[in-house]
């Protein structure tokens, strides 16, 4: 412990702060991942099935989804945090705090995930979809038994990418009192010139990111039977 104390003189006294910040980061990431995951997945599938030549081709729906995704992906996250505050207050009752940060996080990451899902499902060979149609599969069966199944390896890879970028976004949640490791690194470490705190916060984030990447890659490889 003495070596740790030597190189991290301030951080060593802040064990409970780090535990709490790590938990806040994980909490924000997990809840956002679940909510944005469902929304993004739905929009991504919506884009795929309604696109020209899709199994439920619908120009109007496709264009609306496409524009909405582009719109929200264009807004810088830090600005989105502020702009979305009134909406957050309606949904969670307050615009400040960890839970309040989840609303802008969802809005910031769901469109990104939707595009990722769309790209992953575009890779599913159209011939396979046609073969499923030819044996009498309906749209629901094709979505769940063909698109999501055949695209699974790519969906996992896209999800890893989205999760990592989500951790990145949570670091900005400090701006609205969301807490987390990013907040600890900037508002404590950077502001008080306690650079060891900043550095440790970064290390913990790196460990989280590497763990997600590693597990995701292993899982994707397991389900990938294309080669």
């Amino acid at each position: 412990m003495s070596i740790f104390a030597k190189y991290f003189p301030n951080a060593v006294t802040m064990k409970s702060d780090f535990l709490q910040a790590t938990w806040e980061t994980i909490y924000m990431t997990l809840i956002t991942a679940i909510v944005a995951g469902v929304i993004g997945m739905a929009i991504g599938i919506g884009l795929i099935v309604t696109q020209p030549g899709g199994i439920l081709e619908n120009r109007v729906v496709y264009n609306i989804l496409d524009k909405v995704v582009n719109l929200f992906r264009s807004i810088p996250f830090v600005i989105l945090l502020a702009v979305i505050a009134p909406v957050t207050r309606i949904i969670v009752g307050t615009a400040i705090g960890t839970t309040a940060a989840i609303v802008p996080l969802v809005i910031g990451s769901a469109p990104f995930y939707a595009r990722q899902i769309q790209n992953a499902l575009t890779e599913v060979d159209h011939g396979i979809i046609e073969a499923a149609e030819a044996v009498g599969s309906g749209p629901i069966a094709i979505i769940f038994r063909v698109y999501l199944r055949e695209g699974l390896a790519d969906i996992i890879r896209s999800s890893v990418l989205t999760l990592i970028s989500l951790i990145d976004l949570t670091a900005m949640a400090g701006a609205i009192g969301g807490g987390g490791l990013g907040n600890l690194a900037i508002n404590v470490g950077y502001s008080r010139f306690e650079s060891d705190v900043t550095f440790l916060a970064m290390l913990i984030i790196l460990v989280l990111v590497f763990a997600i990447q590693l597990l995701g890659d292993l899982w994707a490889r397991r389900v990938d039977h294309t080669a």
Partner: protein
Amino acid sequence: MTKEPIIQLNHIDVTFHNKGQTVKAVQDVSLEVARGDIYGVVGYSGAGKSTLVRVINRLQRPTAGTVTVNGQNILALRSSELRAARKKIGMIFQHFNLMNARTIADNVDYPLKGSGLSRKERHDKVARLLDLVGLSEKAQDYPAQLSGGQKQRVAIARALANDPEILISDEATSALDPKTTSAILELLKRLNKELGLTVVLITHEMDAVKEICNKVAVMEDGAIIERGDLVSIFSNPQKPLTRDFINTATQIDQALEKIYKQAKGLGLDDHHQLVQLKYVGASTDAPLITELFKRYQVVSNILYGNVEILQDTPLGNLVVVMAGEPDQLEQAWQYCRDAGIQLTFLKPKDPEVA
């Protein structure tokens, strides 16, 4: 012999609109396929063959015309009824279209989901189907581990899962080597015999048609330009495109070219005549060449010979140089014509002039 039609396409038009351009992929095509037929649709790529057969299970909705399959008006079906109808129309594709994330057994099982069969019944049926196509030992493999021919067998098993009466084969052998192609065609023929499966076979290879079809339609620019039973199309093609396809299959064009090249060395004059003999069926039984010599002292030198057995009917093609006295030759030719043999006198072009 009147067999009831299982597929009736009437005055089908398919028009695509793409970026302001209008493409008439299929124009006023009517096609009738009888139960138990193996009906070949031949044509070069872009002729509209694939579009036409996709109309049968409404993967492609025609712009105009009517489609009747098994007495059912396919175009009037609601989507749930259409899905039920599609289960009875199997389809296989050039690129197999197997699901890569599923095992072979799971691929074959896919169409059975929601069929009301129990897990055990489905398992047994998949095993039977894999046995039928000779791939039982590959059940737990993934498509990526199989060869092209094996993948197509899996696709056939999948297409047969719901006991269809019709199988549509869309260029199913075009991505396979000749040996594998023959094996797949053999399998289709066997299924036709054993299960009474009606097959619609689309291809650009007349060889495939020759091997298993009993009926052929030739397509060009979205229209059927010639159709009929295999033997009559092969023995007496009317359209240049049909002749092209057949000549590619019998390779007579290449043979003639070679013969013409060495025509000078043949020493052709009024005692020597280059003749192509074509015969269908029984006339092959008579020992023609011997007969011509015995009766008219005409010597026939065979330069090229090819006999196809189509639907158990032999179809012969000989290119010979006949040598003899001019009047004897005349009589020999008359003898041939009386025997039902088609004669064509070939005049090699002078290479120097050409």
